[in-house]
């Protein structure tokens, strides 16, 4: 119990002080923001993948929709960055909520395939609906606006934006943490552990899968909204199934059963991608592919899964 407090304290301390230590080890704030954005999306996905036991391979759809929601909101309606984030979150969450009933009955590979199907449908809509989404060229022409805090106007430069992202990351992570320690979270885990047992304890498994799917969608939408602001740009590629695969690998790499697993996975994945693609602009895909293979063969329980086992053994 107390170890968990130490771990959590250390994680938050590191995240809060990133601006101080990150440049020292060769990182930069935009990279840190990107790590947080993907970590948040992967943590949302992991609620579904690692804690409810549903293999979603279409989470990028809600990630991307969150981005489009934010981008379109900023383009057409408002200049409030915070409102735009909320709008994006709602768009992503609402889509997941509405499509939940279609996916909640499926299991295993079928769950993966129907989530892919829905994701790809959104992808093609975003790509073909030129007049609204900018189509293949993507949606540009919006940018994150300074924050009006009442007492001050804060321009969102790289450092400020990192803390802006961290703020929403904290909300998202906090919601997930609370959830996992609540009866609702217990029920999700029960479904992962044994669907049949859960059903014959009177739990309407499908409704809970729906709930988990919708919540994961909300989190993905929030992350997607932040992603759109990070790049001041959103394009259909953010909805593509490959992006979903990246989120899944982050969760698996870090540890699907661990709360912080996806964060660890995102740090490694985003970090390696950024680093390796700078040194091997032609061949970085081999490294990412190799990372997938190494992760799957050698770390099926993720980095944190190994850490946890070591500690248990000690």
């Amino acid at each position, binding site marked *: 119990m107390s170890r968990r407090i130490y771990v959590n304290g250390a994680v938050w301390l590191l995240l809060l002080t990133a601006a101080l230590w990150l440049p020292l080890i060769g990182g930069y704030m935009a990279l840190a923001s990107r790590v947080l954005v993907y970590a948040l999306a992967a943590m949302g996905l992991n609620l579904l993948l690692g804690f409810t036991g549903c293999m979603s391979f279409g989470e990028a759809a809600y990630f991307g929709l969150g981005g489009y929601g934010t981008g379109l909101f900023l383009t057409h309606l408002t200049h409030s960055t915070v409102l735009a984030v909320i709008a994006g979150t709602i768009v992503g969450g609402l889509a997941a909520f509405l499509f939940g009933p279609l996916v909640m009955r499926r299991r295993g590979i079928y769950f993966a395939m129907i989530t892919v199907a829905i994701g790809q449908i959104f992808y093609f809509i975003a790509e073909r609906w030129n007049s609204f989404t900018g189509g293949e060229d993507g949606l540009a022409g919006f940018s994150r606006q300074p924050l009006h805090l009442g007492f001050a106007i804060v321009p969102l430069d790289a450092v400020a934006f990192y803390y802006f992202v961290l703020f929403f990351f904290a909300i998202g992570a906090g919601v997930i943490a609370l959830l996992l320690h609540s009866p609702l979270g217990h029920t999700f885990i*029960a479904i992962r552990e044994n669907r049949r047992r*859960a059903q*014959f304890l009177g739990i309407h498994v499908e409704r809970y899968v729906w709930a988990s799917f919708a919540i994961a969608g909300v989190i993905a939408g929030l992350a997607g909204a932040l992603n759109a602001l990070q790049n001041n740009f959103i394009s259909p590629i953010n909805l593509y199934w490959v992006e979903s695969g990246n989120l899944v690998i982050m969760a698996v790499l870090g540890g699907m059963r661990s709360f912080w697993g996806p964060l660890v996975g995102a740090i490694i994945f985003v970090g390696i991608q950024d680093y390796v693609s700078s040194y091997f602009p032609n061949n970085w895909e081999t490294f990412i592919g190799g990372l997938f293979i190494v992760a799957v063969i050698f770390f099926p329980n993720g980095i944190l899964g190994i850490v946890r086992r070591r500690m248990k053994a000690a």
Partner: protein
Amino acid sequence: MSLLRLTNISRVFGKLVALQNVELEMEEGRLYAVIGPNGAGKTTLFNLISGFFPATSGEIWFDGRQINRVPAANRVALGLVRTFQITEVFPELSVFENVRIGVEAEARCSTRPWPGRALIRQINQRVEELLETTGLSAQAGRIVSELAHGDQRVVEVTMALSRRPKLLLLDEPTAGMGQEETAHMVRLIRDLHVRQQQSILFIEHDMDLVFGIADRITVLNYGKVLATGTPRDVAADPLVQAAYLGEASA
């Protein structure tokens, strides 16, 4: 009024008739056993009662309601809770956590994302109470998959109890158990029956066990009811002796 009544139940899988015109009636507070050789349709019968799949024909009445079309999860809320022949637990969770799932479902708070402290206390108290009842308190913190087989089955029974069943359905509760474990399970079942007047319907293979504790017995063979009655009546039934006991003792 009877607690459970099956009228003219049949179940067909393709060409195979698993159950044929089964009648069964059970009063509240009874300890009722269903026996029969392998393939007699015992588990099929349980699956029909618990809503695993629907009956091909016939009616299932429970607590004054016809429940043919009630989904499995809702039957639990009505008070019909079952265990499985092959233990179904949440293997990677602790004993406490296993039971808590059921308690939370019973408290109708499974959907609560952030419960109050009072509720949490209530839930934990109830879990401990249940663990006390079934003698698992000492094991509360252990991961279920690491427990002995017999203990895992007790966990499953405890989980079932957490839903405060009006009727507890136990599918071969002593399957695969050693002597000691079996004795423990039998004691548990009898305790529940005697001390808490828990209505129990169970399937069993072990004849001695059934005749030792059941009030009433129904014998199934090839999907049909061969005999129903008190242990003594059933034991004396020539049909049963010929078809089942004869085989078993031979």
